[in-house]
């Protein structure tokens, strides 16, 4: 098996090399057959990568512990379902996975590339093949997943326990897939530039490919956040960890790109700018790969430090030089012939929003790199973690949300005062009323209140537009649901975008709630005792444990009650006098208004081989708040020590996921596949209705 894998990798390497040389030489000397054969060689790399991957999967399935990677990342006890996870759980396997994704999407996108890009395809193929060549080479010679062990162990080491969670089936593959997928739109644009194809032919392809990469990456990050929240017991979902940041940065730039590409599509502006954005996104993705592979920054995520770091750093620098060298070389040809007409136009709003996205990206990059500068400049190490990013990026992110409300309400070219007035009055009022209401109710945290106001403003702007568009169609005879559906279908990129905006607002609610209003308390409970926080009582009812060869697991069964604070006035006052948020009750007799809400089962496992603990939080989630219980430890004296928090609005974080995905799909759905072009009569009818 190992031999087959190595052979496939070497073959893939040869095919990729041939594809690069064949494309370039064939194009230069005008030999069409050579170009075609280079393209076919490109298709064959997919077969090579597939065979190599299949060989590795087969080795896992057969428990072939003579292969070092298999012995290190699985054992005979492992649930077979986790073979898929084990496949990419280590350095070498994840590289193979990335290569598989890269070859797959390369082949698909080349196969389906539109005819009008034919002139630039050889160059696109050459770029993609060159990147594949790099990965094949690394896998064959530096980080081979098929390395054999001299002595075959009886059993493998097992899979990393943190990875045995359903989230792991999708989070890492989506994240890695999204990062590598940025390569494809980059290759298409760079190919066009190399071929001297300076028109706007590549807009649609680049837009679709970029949205795919962006959607996959975004979904991957969201799943990662969910995973951290439910399983890692960090008590949080986003830690601004370097590895999270390097995934976020290209995503931000792609977000800017998929907005500004619309400006190019509609108005012919920003051509040069769009090329630059995609170049930045691509280079940042390479930075992500580099930091992921033993880069210089400390992270909970990174693979063990390895010599791969230097190789990926070189590859990143080469990418940087290539992307921007090409850009500068072709820049004179990229100038737009169109002009901006007004500050008050959607295109200018998009430009401002682009710069805000880039600003968040740059600030994040600065935060990631600052410890290195500090080390170099004065030999003092500093940490840059969540508190820094919250403060440095928070205001700009809020600004982006504000622009999310303003931009779509502005028309292209130029807004008349009339339309500004018409369209902004309700969103502005809604935002102001929200702020006023919250203030009147005596809610504290002014920044959060302002942020709520902004969210309301944007939500109102989206609803307003949907309302008007739907009402117009409704008047022409459709029912409400149908009218809305027609509205969305009439312009999918736009309304898909709105659906994504709604998901971002939901995310925003969750972020505001959990960051500004979280309540925390710690406590250790004996069986039968209760912990009270706010209006929850958590009673430790029972516990259980299981010893398995790989882990010692313990869990607590707890009942959650809603209480009336008036029943506990004395205890609350004592606790507050002690400076405590919650308190422990010795006896668990029910008081008058206690109401059983349900049970939770926080779980704590210790993995002997890995000397690693893994916890599953007990979460009771509602639309307004989560009761979140992390079992920190099961103590020797029989108590369980808990970190308990109330995370307001956390539910919205995860509810945003489906909206994000649906919105992305709507935006991507090919417009040509929509119903037939409406007849002239219908156009007139709707024109009357709408205007």
């Amino acid at each position, binding site marked *: 098996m190992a031999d087959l894998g190595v052979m496939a990798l070497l073959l893939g390497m040869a095919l990729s090399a041939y594809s690069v040389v064949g494309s370039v030489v064939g194009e230069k000397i005008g030999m069409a057959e050579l170009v075609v054969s280079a393209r076919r060689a490109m298709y064959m790399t997919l077969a090579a990568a597939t065979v190599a991957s299949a060989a590795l999967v087969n080795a896992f399935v057969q428990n072939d512990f003579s292969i070092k990677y298999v012995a290190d990342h699985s054992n005979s006890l492992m649930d077979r379902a986790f073979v898929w996870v084990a496949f990419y759980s280590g350095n070498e396997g994840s590289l193979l996975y990335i290569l598989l994704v890269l070859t797959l999407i390369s082949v698909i996108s080349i196969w389906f590339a539109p005819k009008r890009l034919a002139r630039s395809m050889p160059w696109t193929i050459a770029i993609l093949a060159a990147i594949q060549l790099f990965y094949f080479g690394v896998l064959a010679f530096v980080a081979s997943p098929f390395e054999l062990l001299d002595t075959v162990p009886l059993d493998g080491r097992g899979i990393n326990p943190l990875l045995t969670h359903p989230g792991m089936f999708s989070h890492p593959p989506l994240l890695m897939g999204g990062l590598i997928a940025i390569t494809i739109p980059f290759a298409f644009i760079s190919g066009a530039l190399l071929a001297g194809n300076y028109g706007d032919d590549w807009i649609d392809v680049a837009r679709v490919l970029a949205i795919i990469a962006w959607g996959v990456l975004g979904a991957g990050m969201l799943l990662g956040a969910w995973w951290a929240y439910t399983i890692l017991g960090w008590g949080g979902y986003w830690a601004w960890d370097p590895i999270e940041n390097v995934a976020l940065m290209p995503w931000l730039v792609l977000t800017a790109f998929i907005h500004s590409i619309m400006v190019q599509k509609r108005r012919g502006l920003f051509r040069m700018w769009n090329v630059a954005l995609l170049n930045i996104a691509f280079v940042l993705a390479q930075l992500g790969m580099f930091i992921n592979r033993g880069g210089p920054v400390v992270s*909970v995520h990174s693979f063990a430090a390895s010599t791969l770091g230097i190789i990926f750093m070189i590859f990143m620098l080469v990418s940087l030089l290539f992307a921007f060298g090409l850009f500068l070389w072709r820049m004179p040809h990229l100038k737009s012939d169109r002009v901006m007409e007004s500050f008050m136009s959607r295109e200018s709003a998009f430009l401002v929003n682009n710069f805000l996205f880039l*600003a968040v990206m740059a600030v994040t990059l600065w935060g990631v790199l600052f410890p290195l500068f*500090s080390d170099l400049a004065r030999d003092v190490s500093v*940490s840059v973690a969540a508190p820094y990013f919250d403060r440095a990026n928070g205001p700009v992110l809020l600004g982006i949300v504000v622009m999310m409300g303003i931009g779509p309400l502005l028309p292209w070219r130029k807004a*008349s005062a009339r339309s500004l007035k018409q369209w902004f009055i309700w969103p502005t009022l809604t935002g102001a009323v929200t702020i006023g209401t919250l*203030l009147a109710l005596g809610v504290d945290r002014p920044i959060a209140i302002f942020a709520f106001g902004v969210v309301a403003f944007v939500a109102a702007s989206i609803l307003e537009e949907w*309302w008007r568009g739907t009402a117009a169609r409704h008047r022409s005879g459709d029912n409400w649901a149908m009218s809305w559906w027609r509205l969305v279908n009439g312009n999918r990129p*736009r309304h898909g975008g709105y659906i994504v905006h709604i998901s971002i607002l939901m995310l925003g609610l969750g972020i505001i709630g959990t960051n500004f209003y979280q309540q925390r308390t710690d406590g250790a409970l004996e069986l039968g005792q209760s912990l009270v926080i706010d209006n929850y009582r958590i009673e430790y009812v029972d516990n259980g444990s299981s010893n398995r060869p790989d882990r010692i697991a313990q869990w607590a069964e707890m009942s959650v009650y809603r209480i009336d604070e008036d029943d506990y006035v004395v205890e609350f006052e004592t606790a507050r006098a002690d400076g405590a948020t919650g308190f422990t009750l010795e006896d668990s007799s029910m008081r008058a208004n206690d109401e059983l809400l349900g049970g939770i089962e926080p779980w704590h496992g210790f993995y002997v081989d890995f000397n690693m603990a893994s916890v599953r939080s007990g979460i009771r989630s509602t639309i307004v708040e989560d009761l979140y219980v992390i079992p920190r430890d099961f103590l020797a004296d029989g108590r369980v020590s808990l970190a308990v928090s109330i995370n307001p609005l956390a539910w919205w974080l995860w509810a945003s996921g489906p909206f994000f995905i649906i919105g992305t799909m709507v935006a991507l759905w090919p417009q040509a596949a929509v119903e037939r072009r409406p007849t002239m009569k219908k156009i007139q009818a709707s024109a009357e209705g709408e205007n």
Partner: protein
Amino acid sequence: MFRVRHVAALFFIPLYFGVTLHGESKVMASRFPFVLSGSRALPNNSALLVVAALFLIIFVSAIGCIREEDITLEQRAHQLAAQLMCPVCDGQTIDGSSAQISQDMRLKVRELLDEGQTNAEIKDYFVLRYGEDILAAPEGSGFNLLAWVVPVFIVFGGIGIALVAIKNMRKAGIQAKSSPLPAQKNGDLSDFLAQVDRDLSGPPDSLTSDQDPKSPSPANQNEEANF
């Protein structure tokens, strides 16, 4: 006492009104004075400044409402713990980590808080013993000030570049076109306001945007057809 979750439900009420009132009171609505006017509104429009000032006032006055006494010592302990790194873990704060040293440090934080020390004093305590990298965010002084100043330059520099770029692109546009709109020529709003007054005195029907054939909308429909 109100808490945010009580308010979360109320949060949607304004939205509801925003939608339902919408059809009826458009005439009223369009009289609100704080809406921007004119296509060159951004650089020299006093209405915008008023809006900005209003928001600023609400914002600043509300900041005074925060009182440290409202926060229990335990809440403060958690906030502090989230600002201190765990010395033996990779990139985790002591608030999130279950390592023994993190537990000890959390207890120490609580102890110092009970002694009545301020947040700054407690941070200093740990910096003295563990070094600067115990802080999850660098302090804003000395060399570390750079960490905080650079983002400000990035953000304002970025917005500045964007605005200058738009301005330049516009200038080219104005030169290319011979007849800019009146409102653009002199930045004077009187013509426009007169027009608004005329419009307002007209029959209400013509003001409902959905039926007014002249009113431009963001979803300008001929553009919408093939986005």
